[in-house]
């Protein structure tokens, strides 16, 4: 068919447009090509970052740190003293400038982390932050009404447990060290690591007991 057909031309045009990335995708592509061609950032660095954070780095690094702290009191002491140094020892460091502080839950204290300014998060050890962590609702409400927000996550805190809300910054990020659940005596590092959830390390989950709910 060689005759001009306006419907066909419109269809072709739509297909071409369909292939056009969205406005923000084009803006990102523009920035990327500009910084790469000026040698400000290596393209391999960007590719490696996207691959690592999309597929490989989840909360498992943080979970391993928590599980180790359950098994080894001296590791726990060092983690609470200087979590950034411990992360570096394990090869989990992110920005050199970003310090990490570990805060431990006890029978009397529950810790929960937020970034009220934007979305600072220890992503080199917890992977990408969940979407709710970035939401305006979480960022404002967890400070105002932490117990209510925690209840929405299914965390019912007894009266005697105080809540500490830690506000992350670009320079200081937090890792909540949840309590080791009862009934896990004799468990291996791998078994314990599998119990520790991302939300527990943000503080929106408290009880990691495998006998209460699934240890997903």
């Amino acid at each position: 068919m060689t005759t001009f057909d306006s419907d066909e031309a419109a269809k072709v045009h739509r297909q071409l447009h369909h292939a056009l990335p969205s406005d923000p995708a084009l803006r990102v592509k523009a920035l990327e090509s500009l910084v790469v061609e000026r040698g400000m950032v290596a393209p391999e660095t960007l590719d490696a970052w996207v691959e690592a954070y999309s597929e490989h780095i989840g909360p498992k690094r943080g979970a391993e740190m928590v599980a180790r702290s359950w098994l080894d009191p001296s590791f726990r002491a060092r983690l609470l003293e200087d979590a950034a140094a411990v992360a570096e020892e394990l090869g989990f460091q992110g920005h050199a400038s970003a310090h990490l502080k570990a805060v431990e839950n006890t029978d009397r204290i529950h810790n929960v982390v937020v970034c009220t300014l934007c979305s600072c998060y220890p992503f080199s050890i917890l992977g990408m932050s969940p979407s709710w962590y970035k939401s305006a609702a979480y960022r404002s409400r967890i400070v105002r009404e932490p117990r209510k927000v925690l209840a929405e996550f299914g965390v019912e805190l007894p009266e005697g447990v105080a809540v500490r809300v830690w506000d992350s910054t670009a320079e200081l990020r937090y890792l909540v060290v949840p309590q080791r659940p009862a009934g896990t005596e004799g468990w291996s590092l791998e078994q314990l690591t599998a119990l520790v959830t991302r939300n527990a390390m943000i503080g929106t989950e408290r009880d990691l007991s495998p006998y209460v709910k699934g240890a997903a």
Partner: protein
Amino acid sequence: MSPPDAPAPFTDDSGPVFDEPWHAQVLALADAMVAAGHFSAADWAEALGAARAAAEARAAPDTVEGYYLCALEALEGLLARHTPIGAQIQRERKEAWSRAYLATPHGRPVELGR
């Protein structure tokens, strides 16, 4: 102006880490620029915080897409302030990519016309 009163659904999102490739790319770029010392982590947090505050002030939807749009806006602003890559250059490059996409037949790599 005020945050929504209705409880947000703080559901666990165990889907893909990034909904769109550009979401990952914008964070990768920001992280790489900080690591290379073009601006600081504090600059990034401040710019992203300001973009978020502005979005909240104009009652933009509190969504994942909205978050990444703020991240993109923050990155564009930081490049304009801390590098020679100003807003005009950014706009022109975006238009150039747009033209390149429209001019490239299906199945061929999209390249900028020189």
